[in-house]
């Protein structure tokens, strides 16, 4: 269905980059703070542990895709649980897409407000993000994939450059002693990044649009390892440059790197560059979830087109993003404490695992009619 709603097809590498931005778009900004709250200097170990969650969640999505080819995350429940309970679960997923996306947009807007445009009303920034993401969603998956490739590469490059330029201030000894408090705080600190990395379950929405759906497993492995490595590095580097305590004073600690970078008195105050790259990253991440919500909804409603939903869903997203938290304190608390603890066991691992178990019990052959391989390219694009 998803494949019919969006006629576009993306290559394996485009899918990898989409999956990377899908996690990295926001998590680089908030992960060090959320993780270090519990894991302290071992934040990098927590990120490393969380990488396993990403690999696992993506693996479940890939395994489901192999057993139910042509279907997506919102169609598996219907195919496996039957019509009514299946629809109910699928709608829960759509709601989860919307709620999660609203926090993504809100984070982007709060970042811009806190650091760069303090006098601009948050609503304007929210609307701008949604407009930008909405245009991408309206363009379809191919447009998103093509727009995303340079953005993801720039984002990874900007992380790399922030690390290289701050090498004079980084002292890897600050990572010692390792595991001072044992594994418990590390695992507790791994929950927020695990929640973000396990967003790899969203592969289940992209997989019908893959030119080679058989590559789903490969997409997950590469994307999870790439994102996990980058997150681990940035967590380690944050501790190396700022110690385990100082970053906890800040909402977006990664932005502090621009304060201490000074190469030959010329290359400094790179804030604007970082902002440009990360705003694009947040917008694309938002677009992927936005697209998933629209196509998922169209699929469940049996619509032939998802594009008429782009504007109403966009308006809904602006409203939800405004409502998602009363202020930045609530937002941080919600993301660090609540979102991951609900998403990880329920939407990212729990339900998918249950569905996979059902699919396996049923013997792997999809029900007649449910698993048509998608035609290479559908006519009648809008």
């Amino acid at each position, binding site marked *: 269905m998803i494949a019919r709603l969006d006629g576009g097809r993306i290559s394996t590498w485009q899918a990898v980059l989409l999956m990377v931005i899908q996690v990295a778009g926001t998590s680089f900004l908030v992960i060090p703070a959320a993780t270090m709250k519990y894991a302290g200097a071992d934040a990098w170990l927590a990120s490393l542990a969380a990488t396993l969650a990403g690999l696992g969640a993506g693996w479940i999505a890939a395994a489901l895709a192999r057993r139910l080819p042509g279907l997506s995350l919102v169609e598996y429940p219907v195919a496996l649980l039957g019509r009514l309970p299946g629809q109910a679960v699928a709608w829960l997923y759509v709601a989860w897409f919307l709620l999660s996306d609203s926090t993504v947009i809100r984070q982007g807007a709060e970042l811009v407000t806190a*650091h*760069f445009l303090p006098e*601009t009303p948050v609503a304007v920034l929210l609307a*701008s993000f949604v407009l930008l993401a909405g245009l991408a969603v309206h363009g379809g998956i191919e447009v998103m994939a093509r727009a995303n490739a340079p953005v993801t590469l720039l984002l990874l490059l900007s992380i790399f450059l922030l690390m290289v330029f701050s090498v004079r201030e980084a002292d890897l*000894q600050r990572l010692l*002693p390792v595991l*001072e408090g044992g594994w418990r705080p590390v695992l507790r600190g791994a929950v927020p990044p695990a929640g973000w990395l396990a967003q790899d379950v969203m592969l289940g929405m992209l997989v019908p649009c893959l030119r080679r759906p058989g590559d789903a497993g490969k997409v997950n492995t590469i994307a999870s390892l790439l994102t996990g490595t980058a997150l681990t590095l940035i967590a380690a580097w944050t501790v190396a440059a700022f110690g385990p305590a*100082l970053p906890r*004073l*800040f909402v977006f600690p990664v932005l502090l790197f621009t304060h201490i970078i000074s190469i030959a008195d010329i290359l400094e105050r790179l804030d604007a560059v970082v902002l440009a790259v990360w705003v694009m990253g947040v917008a694309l991440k938002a677009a992927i979830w936005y697209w998933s919500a629209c196509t998922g909804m169209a699929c469940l409603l049996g619509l032939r087109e998802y594009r008429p939903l782009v504007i109403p869903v966009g308006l809904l997203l602006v409203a939800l993003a405004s409502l998602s938290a009363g202020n930045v304190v609530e937002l941080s608390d919600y993301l660090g404490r609540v979102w991951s603890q609900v998403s990880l066991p329920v939407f990212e691992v729990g339900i998918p695992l249950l569905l996979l178990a059902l699919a396996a019990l049923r013997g792997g052959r999809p029900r007649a009619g449910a698993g048509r391989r998608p035609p290479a390219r559908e006519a009648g694009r809008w």
Partner: protein
Amino acid sequence: MGRRLAHLAARTLLGAALGLALAGCWNRREVNEVALVSAAAIDRTPEGRTRVTIQLIKPAALAGGGDQAPGAGGPRAIFKVAATGNTLFEAVRHLNHYVPRKPEWNHNNVIVFSEEVARSGVGDLLDFFLRDHEARLDQWILVARGQEAAAALDAHWELEPNSGVAMRLIYRRGAINTGEIAPVRLYDFMLALTSPTRAPLAAVIRPFLPGEERAGLETRPGTTWRIGEAAVFRKDRLAGWLSDREVRGLQWLRGKVVSGIIRVPCQNPPGEGIGVEILGSRARLVPEWRAGELPAVRVPIRVFGKLGDLMCRDDVARPGPFARLAERTAGVVLAEAEATLRRLQRELGADPLGIGEALHRAFPREFKGWKERWDEVYPRVRVIPEVTVELSQTGISVGKPVPRAPGGGGAGEEP
């Protein structure tokens, strides 16, 4: 056809809307609308309120060009304003009762605390500089010793019309060129302050004391302030001072002396000096501990240098004496390091070197016990500097003394 027209109209409108957004109406501030803060000084009034004095840049005066020498009759490129408030931020906002533009903190160079403020604790005052989105972590921290902080902003520095910039440059370049200033930005200060054991530092800004100009350097009327020494904090409160030489002792132990001169006493005639130019140094902390004992920290220090000036008759340009000169230089470095350690451990009980952090890393389990009574443990940790000096060259001279009349005093007579 109508549909295409509608499309075209929609696109044009969208383009126009983007154009509006790109002009950036909301947070736009033109250069002629801002007041750039160049330096900030924080004092406490007798009633316990916070007084902030800031130095603002007059862009027009800066653009005026070189013919009006700033400070010499012409309009100064900077001016000073002060306001008082119950909190720092409130004080800053009170400035706007008589400053027509809103101060911008992005380019602030230095934050000067008065000695009194430093003694009663700077933590709460730093919060503003960490929270405000304009302020950055690369502002340099100073303590005005025995002075009001605001007075430091009046100090006149040659070559730089903007005294905030002058203070920053002296702070940073002086740290490199002399080794007698420990460079401390807000970033460095906060790294120490958020550590459980490390003591923050800040350089001292103060007027020359009477008679000091003669011993130190020639001064011109007006250039009467200096930056050097260090204020040592315990947590966020000023605990005591380090002299220039003690700061260099600390910088040896940190391996952060980049340049400077070591004076090694002559043997012939005694009392005069050989100047060894420092080319760099390296150090690391090697914690050691045996059960039942207090921990020790070895500090291997490597100093690289060359013969800078030879103001005596010592013939050092032979392998044996040259090697012995290196050993004698090492002795001087060792003495400086040990003097600093005595002061830090016995007198101030402050740990700017990071002895506690080194022990924490090496012996995490045992450190838990030490940390609880750190104030007792720290002065008793044996810190053992081990200095090796590597002299590589004698400059472009071969290293022999320049001939002079027998018995003559030379230029380097010491009182």
